[in-house]
């Protein structure tokens, strides 16, 4: 049972102290209270223990992954970076100064003349 301690330090204060979220003078007050109150001291120890245990267990999970997996992931990253830099080179290609679609090349190939886009659109809408 977390007794409402005589020091007036709430569990929320204790957590904020443990997380380095207090102003220096507030932190000093909590630190003093921890010194003098065995209950607070124990709760503080539990926070320390929990953090240490959680971290150790997740580090153990990471240690269990073989290095080869991390190397594979690096290869993937390397390839992705390569792809991106190739793409950005391609993007940097110079655009023609005048690039309106003229249809000139199309006619030069001897293909039948294209309809006006309005006619083509109307035909499509009629179809639907």
């Amino acid at each position, binding site marked *: 049972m977390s007794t409402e301690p005589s020091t007036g330090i709430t569990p*929320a204060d204790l957590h904020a102290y443990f997380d380095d979220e207090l102003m220096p003078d507030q932190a000093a007050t909590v630190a003093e209270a921890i010194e003098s109150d065995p209950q607070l001291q124990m709760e503080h120890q539990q926070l320390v*223990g*929990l953090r*240490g*245990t*959680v971290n150790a267990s997740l580090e153990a999970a990471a240690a269990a992954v073989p290095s080869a997996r*991390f190397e594979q992931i690096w290869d993937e*990253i390397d390839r992705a970076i390569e792809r991106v830099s190739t793409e950005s080179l391609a993007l940097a290609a110079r655009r023609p100064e005048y690039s309106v679609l003229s249809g000139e090349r199309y006619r030069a190939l001897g293909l039948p003349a294209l309809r006006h886009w309005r006619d083509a659109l109307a035909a499509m809408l009629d179809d639907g």
Partner: protein
Amino acid sequence: MASTDADDHQLVKAAQAGDRRAFQALYQRYERKVYSVAYGFLRNQEDALDVLQEAFIKVHRYLPNFEGQSSFYTWLYRIVANLCIDHLRRSGRKRDVEFDDRLRHDGETDAAPDLSPITALGDPSAAVKNKEILSAVQDSLGKLSDKHRAVIVMRELQGLSYADMAKAMNCSKGTIMSRLFHARRNMQKLLSERLEYIPSKTEPQSGDSMTQEAAS
């Protein structure tokens, strides 16, 4: 092999100048750390490796904009936390809705449980060498809601500030404080319940003596 901010800074500068090997060195320095964070959030090896990959591709893309107001790892961890949270949202886990912060107001039943088993563990990295203890911790983490696990990982492992956590979870600092408080309480409760059933928890054991016990 302790990584320092100064080493990071040099590697970042070199990587920004296009040195691919410096970038690889940054990756190698943080691969396991990032993995353990992502694994903490997602509880799945392949998902965690995906996040590791995405994170470094992102880091590479935004590296030119990184000006070093914060340390490299704080920046990296923010990216990783965001990716993990996105991942959880995308996968639309039902459990996320189920928990939320419902426990916030049941102050009476939320009293600090008897947590002596946790403090009795002693040095945590030695304790988790005991497979039973390790799985007790991992199962307890697994039983937390996604949100509770997220705040635990962001604070305990990544050391993010309340403000950074609030930004990552898109909520207020007050919500983070309350969420973290209850997440820790839940975790402590789950863990001490599990540890009660491990009689040998306070005796440091080598793998050999465990094998002998199992054989006898």
